[in-house]
């Protein structure tokens, strides 16, 4: 069964696909939800900033994008392009809750759903493709249900194909609110017309290297021999790009849901101004450690590699330590971050960005606990503080060193790197 659907491509019968995946991408997620919430902002260029007073636009509305404002633009750049742009602080709680609701919605349509990022998901339709007549029927159903769940202003692109890689290309390349499918008939056309910026896994640097040897799109990769590709791009990328040029999934997609648990947890923050105050730096690092260690504990994990990252004035400093044993207690992680790593640094620049990471995570059930009574005493204390936070809210009880100064509270990121923590999957 075939038929034209708008400008987005052919309408394909789902049962024609042996395997069938849908990719759903909510358009301009952060900004769209804010516009859904506030009708006064609908139809206007909106830039989302992390907090009030920030100048980096972390998301732009459809209207702002049409005027050339993109993610990562600075306030002054955006004002030149869109003088009437409204800068609105992000509401991370709203975004995370909307993603949870979308996950439940998608799970009502198919037994296998993979959340790719905060605003993107893959739905495996292989086992239920006979429930939906064709790509347009399924796409329209998803779009209607999203509007019912989140509101009438929220639109989504739906891409459908036989694997996630092509479904994502289909979704990314269609106009806002479209339904696009790829099958054998239009595969070569899509591969030849899709820009590398719309290809998952191909970053700016790789695109530059490809252009340097005359490759402007995925289809052109077919014209190069394996030896030529390997010579210019190395053994890894030559194989991955070869797969992509035939519409096959690169390795990147195999890792979406393959990890049984998170490999690392961390937290970073960019301050409002360059910091030269030792007490303030210590407070911020402590605050970041509390969140990082608490995340690990709440998932029953502990790590043995601790890293700290600081940057400012166009410079950065990074250090890490790999331990023979696993840690996840606030006190021990902070000792390592601050006293073992940070204190060894001869501070040579003012700091604006701070990051802490606990890696090489392993389930606590697979780790032998130390026998020292002091370790167990500390563990009981932190467990009690965690329970108080569960009952009365985060930071109800906190170290005295965090009593003064602004608290850094947990938040979610767009790429949802900690999705197994945030979504519990």
């Amino acid at each position: 069964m075939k038929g034209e659907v708008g400008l987005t491509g052919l309408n394909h019968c789902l049962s024609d696909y042996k395997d069938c995946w849908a990719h759903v991408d909510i358009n301009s997620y952060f900004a769209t939800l804010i516009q859904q919430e506030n009708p006064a902002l609908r139809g206007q260029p909106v830039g989302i900033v992390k907090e009030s007073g920030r100048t980096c636009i972390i998301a732009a509305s459809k209207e702002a994008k049409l005027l050339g404002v993109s993610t990562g633009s600075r306030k002054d750049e955006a004002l030149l392009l869109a003088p009437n742009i409204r800068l609105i602080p992000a509401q991370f709680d709203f975004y995370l809750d909307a993603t949870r609701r979308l996950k439940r919605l998608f799970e009502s349509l198919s037994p296998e759903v993979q959340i790719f990022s905060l605003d993107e998901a893959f739905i495996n339709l292989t086992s239920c493709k006979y429930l939906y007549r064709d790509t347009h029927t399924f796409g329209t159903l998803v779009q209607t249900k999203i509007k019912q769940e989140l509101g009438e202003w929220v639109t989504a692109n739906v891409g459908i194909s036989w694997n996630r890689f092509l479904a994502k290309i289909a979704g990314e390349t269609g106009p806002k609110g479209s339904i696009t499918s790829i099958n054998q008939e239009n595969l070569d056309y899509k591969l030849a017309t899709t820009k590398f910026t719309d290809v998952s896994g191909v970053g700016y640097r790789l695109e530059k290297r490809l252009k340097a040897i005359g490759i402007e799109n995925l289809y052109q990769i077919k014209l190069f021999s394996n030896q030529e590709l390997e010579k210019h791009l190395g053994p890894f990328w030559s194989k991955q790009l070869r797969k992509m040029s035939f519409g096959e999934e690169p390795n990147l997609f195999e890792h979406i849901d393959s990890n049984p648990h998170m490999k690392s947890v961390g937290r970073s923050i960019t301050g409002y101004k360059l910091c030269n105050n030792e007490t303030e730096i210590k407070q911020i690092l402590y605050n970041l450690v509390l969140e990082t260690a608490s995340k690990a504990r709440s998932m029953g994990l502990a790590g043995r590699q601790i890293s700290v990252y600081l940057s400012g004035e166009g410079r950065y400093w990074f250090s890490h330590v790999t331990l023979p044993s696993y840690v996840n207690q606030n006190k021990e992680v902070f000792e390592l971050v601050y006293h073992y790593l940070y204190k060894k640094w001869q501070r040579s620049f003012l700091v604006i960005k701070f990051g802490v990471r606990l890696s090489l995570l392993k389930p606590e059930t697979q780790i032998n606990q130390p026998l020292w009574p002091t370790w167990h005493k500390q563990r009981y204390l932190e467990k009690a503080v965690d329970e108080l936070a569960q009952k009365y809210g985060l930071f109800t009880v906190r170290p005295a060193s965090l009593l003064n100064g602004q608290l850094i509270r947990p938040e979610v990121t767009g790429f949802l790197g900690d999705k197994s923590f945030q979504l519990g999957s």
Partner: protein
Amino acid sequence: MYQTIGEEIQVAGLFKKGRFWPSKFKWYGQTFNIQKITLTAEANNGGVKLRYYSVLASGNLYRLQYNRQFETWRLMEIWCEG
């Protein structure tokens, strides 16, 4: 822009399909009739469950927060044009 308020309010509403939907709220003695709920969201502060309702009343947007643990309502923010 949004103006932070963070004050306790009183709320009346209806239970519909197993959920509570606010229909009016009282702030400083003035009653605001809710014309539309534009967005709802659930959030956690540690283990404390919060529910947000973004509502339109008298043509303006108000962000209400319901603390499910302590059963209290707060007017968190108001949208002020300009």
